[in-house]
């Protein structure tokens, strides 16, 4: 493939476009409520109305307002139909010709949509994820061409450094710095890994991106591979995402077919292939060293760092690991420039962040907002607040590694530093809203149980510490604990946080620590008086002189 081919594909695709497009969500959420059936019936209805030449029914990726699915949106009228059933198809088609429809619609100009700023999700819900031509028509693979033909690997790394992009997997490590380290690491063989092991309960951002715009990941990975000098990539995706897996397989096949993966890409000396590795249900494999062990076909247990994967990763070769959303940002940055990207967001957190909004909230779904957007904007304005007139009590971010941010801190801007300051983390982007009926000790116990079940068992603090913390939380909830037990719990939190081998253990106490910080009274209300008075180290042992 050449640049000319790319342009030709794009032009042909645009020329073939019809005046009216009915976009029908074919992501996992909507397909589970028969959006496939909706699409088929829409096609049939279009044919019956004799509109084949004017109307295209297009299967697209996630259209974001998942709670209202299946979703169908008409271009250019913007009408957004919700909870569509196959039987609604004729009415939707009829409405295209100006007929009044009584079908349920959502307002595409509501804050849920208008406050979003799309970089990662630009193509999401717009293009057909199963056709490479659709991605190319949306300027896809142009950045890869530019990189291969006009830039040195160092230029690419410099651009990413300049953009200020930070890893979207949770910790927020500067992406450019990571790339630079891998690029500089000596080694003939290097690897790229895309971490698509989205394990946080309540998070589905990465799944949506994979299902909606798989080529953006392939392009991002290819650019990264060129920048660091790798020729082999792996996408580690969880087995629970069969649709994402099949779309990735399809995308890789298409890219290979047209020569955008393989050897001599864009007639340059650059070779790059991507293989898919399917996870098998282990949360700890989100940790990069555990993930690498799993890619190597081993038990997914982490190992101490250093050495970091950038120096010694897969099969001891320098390896770059980024998550899905990070790779999805790469092509846009190169297409539109580092300065453009760095102009979005806050001083230390650049660009946008995708969140999966869920829990006790009106509008659940997928949102992408600039870094620094206040939490209240996200949950109150975009999310529509708690349902049934309830009141938001806290917002949980970062999954089992994160924390609960209470109502009084909802004005916090969402960026890496601010969330960390509140004892939570950005995490991968799950955002669970809780209302007044939620018991925070129970929330802490839920996450601790998750961490206990997902602990790999390699290091003692995480393996045995989560068991004891979980036991203490159970005891507190059963009203069998005393202040001594609470002190033990806090001490264990500190110890497990500071001594565990990997991120899972180091962050496992976070849900407890953050709920203790903001909702301590909920713990204390459950404590029982110690009949003999506490004899914690704080109260000195009485001197052993004779009784009077």
């Amino acid at each position, binding site marked *: 493939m050449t640049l000319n081919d790319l342009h030709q594909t794009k032009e042909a695709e645009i020329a073939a476009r019809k005046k009216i497009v009915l976009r029908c969500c074919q992501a996992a959420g909507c397909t589970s409520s028969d959006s496939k059936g909706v699409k088929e019936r829409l096609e049939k209805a279009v044919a019956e109305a004799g509109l084949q030449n004017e109307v295209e029914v297009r299967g697209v990726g996630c259209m974001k307002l998942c709670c209202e699915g299946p979703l169908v949106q008409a271009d250019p009228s913007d009408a957004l139909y919700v909870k569509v059933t196959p039987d609604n198809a004729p009415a939707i088609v009829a409405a295209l010709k100006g007929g009044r429809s009584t079908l349920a619609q959502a307002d595409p100009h509501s804050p849920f949509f208008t406050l979003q700023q799309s970089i990662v999700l630009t193509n999401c819900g717009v293009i057909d994820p199963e056709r490479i031509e659709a991605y190319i028509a949306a300027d896809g693979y142009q950045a890869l061409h530019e990189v291969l033909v006009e830039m040195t690997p160092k230029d690419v790394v410099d651009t990413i450094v300049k953009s200020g992009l930070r890893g979207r997997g949770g910790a927020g490590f500067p992406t450019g710095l990571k790339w630079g380290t891998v690029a500089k690491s000596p080694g003939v063989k290097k690897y790229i890994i895309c971490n698509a092991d989205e394990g946080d309960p309540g998070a589905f951002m990465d799944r949506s991106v994979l299902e909606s715009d798989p080529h953006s990941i392939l392009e991002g990975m290819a650019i990264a591979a060129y920048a660091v000098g790798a020729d082999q990539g792996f996408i580690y995706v969880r087995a629970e995402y069969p649709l994402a897996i099949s779309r990735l397989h399809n995308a890789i096949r298409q890219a290979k077919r047209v020569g955008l993966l393989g050897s001599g890409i864009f007639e340059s000396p650059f070779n790059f292939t991507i293989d898919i590795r399917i996870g098998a249900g282990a949360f700890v494999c989100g940790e990069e060293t555990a993930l690498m062990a799993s890619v190597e076909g081993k038990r997914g247990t982490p190992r101490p760092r250093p050495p970091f994967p950038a120096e010694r990763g897969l099969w001891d070769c320098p390896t770059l690991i980024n998550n899905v959303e990070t790779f999805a940002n790469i092509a846009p940055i190169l297409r539109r420039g580092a300065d453009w990207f760095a102009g979005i967001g806050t001083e230390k957190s650049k660009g946008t962040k995708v969140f999966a909004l869920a829990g006790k909230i009106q509008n659940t779904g997928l949102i992408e907002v600039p870094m620094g957007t206040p939490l209240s904007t996200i949950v109150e304005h975009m999310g529509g607040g708690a349902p049934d007139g309830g009141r938001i009590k806290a917002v949980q971010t970062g999954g089992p590694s994160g924390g609960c941010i209470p109502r009084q801190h909802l004005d916090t801007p969402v960026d890496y530093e601010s969330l960390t300051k509140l004892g939570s983390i950005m995490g991968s982007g799950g955002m669970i809203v809780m209302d007044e009926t939620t018991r925070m000790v129970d929330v802490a116990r839920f996450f601790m149980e998750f961490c206990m079940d997902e602990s790999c068992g390699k290091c003692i603090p995480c393996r045995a510490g989560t068991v004891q913390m979980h036991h203490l939380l159970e005891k507190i909830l059963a009203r069998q604990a005393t202040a001594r037990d609470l002190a033990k719990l806090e001490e264990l939190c500190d110890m497990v946080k500071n001594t565990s081998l990997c991120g899972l253990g180091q962050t496992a106490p976070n849900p407890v620590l953050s709920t203790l910080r903001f909702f301590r009274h909920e713990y204390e209300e459950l404590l029982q008086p*110690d009949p*003999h008075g506490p*004899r914690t180290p704080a109260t000195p*042992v009485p*001197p*052993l002189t*004779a*009784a009077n």
Partner: protein
Amino acid sequence: MERLKIATVWFGGCAGCHMSFLDLDEFLIDLAGLVDLVYSPIIDCKEYPENVDLCLIEGAICNEDNLELLHKIRARTKVLVSFGDCAVTGNVPAMRNQLGPDNVANVLQCAYIEHAQENPRRPSTAGIVPALLPRVMPVHEVVAVEYFLPGCPPAAANIKAFLTQVLAGTTPQLSGRQIKFG
């Protein structure tokens, strides 16, 4: 100065810790000159007295009687010492915990039915034999304990070192092999 009032108590254990205590030999005579032994399985006293300075507790908490007496001891004693592994860890008596929540039934079945040579029958008369607790516990799981003197049994030398420090009015500090389990 008034003499320290010392007690020892025997819960779920083999009495080995008390045997080790008796192994103090001539130190026992010194001790007798310095303290009053106000309650112990080796003296004749039915009721745990008030205002005890120090109590050495042997054994794990296995039954309702143990539990009741332990609470009484805690209320009436300044300083408790978990004396020996059974008190400190639960040790052998706590091995029945491994049999799960219904271990009591299993244990009784095994002891009184399966291995009974004649008249296999579970003791059941109320008020005679105390009921077993569903779970054997080390002493500090029930009440606060100030000092721990592990060992199975704690060597007489360690008991002596501990008591010597107590009698000298210093905070007892044992270290190294003196606090070895087992």
